[in-house]
């Protein structure tokens, strides 16, 4: 099954962490994931201070300066993982350093039409 790991960071906690070690840890995780999955399949986003939220209602467009919701943990990036089942996907999430600085939501990706399993 194909899963996406949606990463939410506590940006303050992440900023307070020793940066060199942190990025080395992410580097190792990316390496391990690409070894297992065949390719690096994720993106990191700029912090939520760079976010803009757009919404259309009754023909009017609202453009808001900031993220969708002003919460402690902000969406920060994602990875795709190919896993046999939920347990394998959970193992990847546990290995990802992000799980220590926020939370990772795991969701199965809807399979393309005619593609069973």
């Amino acid at each position, binding site marked *: 099954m194909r899963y996406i790991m949606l990463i939410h960071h506590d940006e303050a906690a992440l900023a307070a962490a020793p940066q060199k070690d942190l990025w080395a840890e992410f580097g190792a995780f990316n390496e391990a994931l690409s070894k297992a999955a065949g390719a690096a399949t994720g993106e990191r986003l700029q912090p939520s201070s760079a976010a803009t939220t757009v919404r259309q209602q009754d023909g009017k467009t609202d453009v808001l300066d900031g993220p969708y919701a002003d919460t402690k943990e902000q969406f920060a990036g994602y990875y795709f993982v190919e896993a046999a*089942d*939920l*347990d394998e*996907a959970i193992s990847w999430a546990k290995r990802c350093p992000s799980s220590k600085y926020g939370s990772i939501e795991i969701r*199965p990706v809807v399979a393309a039409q005619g593609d069973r399993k």
Partner: protein
Amino acid sequence: MKHENEAGRAAERVARESYGRLVAFLAARTRDVAGAEDALGEAFAAALRMWPNDGVPDNPDAWLLTVARRRQTDSIRRRQTRTSGEGHLTLMADEIAAASEEGAIIPDRRLALMFACAHPAIERGLRAPLILQTILGLTAEDISAAFLIPPATMGQRLVRAKTRIKDAGIPFRLPEKEELGERVQAVLDAIYAAYAKGWNEIGEAGVPDIADEAIWLARLVVSLMPAEPEPKGMLALMYYAEARRAARRSPQGAYVPLEEQDTSLWDDSQIHLAESLLSGANAGGPTGRYQLEAAIQSAHVARRLGGAPTWPAIVQLYDHLYALTRSPVVILNRAVALAELEGPAAALDAIAPLTADKRMQSYQPYWAARGHLLAQTGRAADAHEAFTVAIGLTTDDAVKTYLMHKRDALDGARPS
């Protein structure tokens, strides 16, 4: 549901055994629990109806599969006249056909199904109902009574949970070794929760006894994981409780605490079963929560039956249990045992930290124990207050009456 005679009950057991094995087998292959239940549902209902009267067929699995296969083929034929056939129906029909061809040897995947039902991604409160339904074929209605949830709501939650097993990709297999301990615990906790629900119910005719079903499941887990100590510990704990079932109420229906129970009413054969399971658990692997709790029950039995001074051992066992669980309930139970050794004042000191624990404020045994300890130290007014809160929190009428007597005795002793 309940059969008068032994033979009827035995036939029902065989039907549930076979049904659970087949659901697990089909679900593990297709990841579709609801589909497997649908495919076998009518055949299972027919078995529950017919076997207790007509006797159990030589090969129960094959009987169920044959009936299920016929129904499945019919319903595909019916649907195909309208639409172009439904993929999941065809898939399940193919699986049933394949299973029929495997002959008498259907691999037992019930353990894998239990691990799926008790997966961390399944809401804790639903794990026991899911296991009772998928492994034993109990209806949402049967289960809802014990869990105090309306049948319709229970049904909806079970459907959602099965959809989740399929969509989230919850696996049907034994967990990896490093996770096994934790995951076994989740399966056991679900089964024990079902047991505890059943144990509190004082048998209403016509309602399946969930405690019985939980014991059945525990025996199944013990037989499927013979090397694991905790399933044995849990089954031992259940048998210790079962052994005392007849003694916990007087002939008039009044509540009888452990220390006052008539031990001639205890069931020796169940105590014997519990003891041998416990020593089996002690022989292998690390010591877990259920094993310690069973050991505590064993010590109670040794004291009541043989007069052995086991209170020091019980306090020590609670120390180990606390190190493992960090549970306020363990602090409370340990204090009650400590009172037997060092007196009520020491026990009250031991539960002093619990005053600040929110969970204890609505926990009936906390207030009841507090009442007993305060009464023993002569603090009648405080004891009166504690008993009153305990009575207010009690749902069991026999226990309520018992506590009221204790509170009235207090008033009698109080200087006026």
